[in-house]
């Protein structure tokens, strides 16, 4: 299936993905409502966009007590808003921190790959986020570990 492939080396931290995501998902330009989030490294000189990998286990989906999470035709785990009661079990079941809760709607929210046309990938000006055929992977781990070294050394 097509996934969001993240190349953190290309990310400039411009936040266009968060703005585009929040608008697509919630109709507002508000990064707090984005389900893709930029994490800063090296004192805000490098960045890593972080979002749901649509993992195999689908911890969110299997945890839902009312089957309000299913798999969409493009392979995204999606919330069925009519069924979600807002109990938040999915938010503690997901071990990636990519299952969100919107206090305004009182429902869970997550990356649904925008139905197959992810707004974050379209908005990214540097192709740090691409929607391509690939296996899900830990796109950020080694990048982040290298970038964190300097800062951690200074703290020590």
């Amino acid at each position: 299936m097509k996934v969001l492939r993240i190349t953190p080396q290309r990310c400039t931290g411009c936040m266009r993905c968060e703005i585009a995501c929040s608008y697509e998902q919630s109709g507002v330009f508000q990064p707090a409502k984005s389900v893709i989030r930029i994490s800063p490294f090296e004192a805000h000189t490098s960045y890593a966009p972080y979002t749901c990998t649509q993992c195999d286990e689908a911890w969110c989906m299997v945890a839902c007590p009312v089957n309000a999470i299913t798999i969409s035709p493009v392979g995204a785990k999606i919330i069925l808003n009519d069924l979600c009661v807002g109990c938040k079990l999915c938010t503690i079941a997901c071990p990636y921190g990519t299952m969100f809760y919107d206090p305004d709607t009182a429902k869970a929210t997550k990356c649904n790959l925008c139905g197959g046309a992810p707004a974050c990938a379209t908005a990214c000006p540097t192709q740090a986020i691409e929607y391509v055929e690939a296996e899900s992977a830990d796109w950020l781990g080694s990048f982040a570990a290298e970038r964190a070294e300097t800062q951690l050394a200074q703290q020590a």
Partner: protein
Amino acid sequence: MARTRHVIVGGGTAGMNAISTIRRYDRGASEIILVADERPYSRMVLPYYLKGSISESHVFTAPPTRLRTLDVEPFIGRRAVGVDTQINTLMLDDGTELPYDNLLIATGSSAVRAPVAGADGSGVHSFWTLEQAQGVIRGITPGCSVVLVGAGFIAFTILNSILALNAQLTVVEIAPQILPRMIDATGADVVTRWLQERGVTVRTGVQLNAIEDADGRKRLRFRQGEDVMADQVIMATGIRTNLDWLEGSDITINRGIVVDAHMRSNVPNVYAAGDVAEGRDAVTGEAALHAIEPTAMEHGRIAGANMAGQSQTYRGSLLMNIVEVLGLEIASFGAWDDADAEVMSALRPERPAYRKLLWHDDRITGAMILGPARDIWATNDVGILKGLVQSGVSLRDWKSYLRGNLFDVKRAFIAAGATGRLLPQTVLGRPSVAAESVAVQ
């Protein structure tokens, strides 16, 4: 050859997950019988039914059409009263005898009331079953006063609902703090203050002696301090596993049914799942009675896979809870109260926000997070903390940094490679499928 016959006792989370997992593997090749004393529904969503934000029909998890799709023969409204494991037969309360090839015991728990005079009187409720929820809904009218006896997780799940019905609320708890099995004393202080500032009366360290009738109202007498008057009383004083019916059977019971890594009891074709099963705890590796929804779900899936002839080993479940009261989010994971752990904590009273991480060497084995819902969901560290405990990832490089920066866990999660460790993890050793895609062929 006759079809293998699976008999499932209990239509809650564990039982229903076992059924859909068996069907995922065998697509209808076996016979499945469900014995359940109530129509299957989700307890987890009853607080939303109480609040009025969902209709009653929303709570049911296995309507007749769903059971037909899964080719399940239901015995709804029936209770199991005994099992003879020598002749592989389950006995029901109406005298029916059900022979089985595989039996799953998933009979869950029931609410218990503190043994005080008047606890069974009118206007005194439990909140556990759908029927009890209906009783509470009938009892609460706008402006009435409600006393919640017990300040544990179950009580807190309905706190918002009671207030949403415009009732006056008093919470009383015998322990010195609220949520004694979910958060520590510092966290409890933050939550108590939050509730008090929003008009909820909280009394801890008080023992209820009696509930008396007083001119159509209820008077609660305590060993310490003043009486409390109320219109309705809800007893959330604990739950007890439904295992009495197994008395005299050959099934080994400790605190719950003792099971192996395949959720099998000492009797090889008898499985147990959910609140009644002492499954493996993912952090301690020891047998534990979690009595929580996510554990029941995992138990049910593992039991179902093994009943369907797979050999699926259970890696263990993580103890976890989340509850929100009046906009304050409270969650804990794993061994959050481990006295042998190294502890890091940080309190920001002005938010208020509280974090606690519990360590063994360079791994986090327990965590607590508490703060206003808007803060919590803006950072979304809830899942991150779960992932740090679940993955057991080494945070060697980050430990000293985190000591002074407990609110910056996400970068540690990313840089420590937690995602890479978690991605291959699946409960059944293969990708999960959506519930509605499981059907007989």
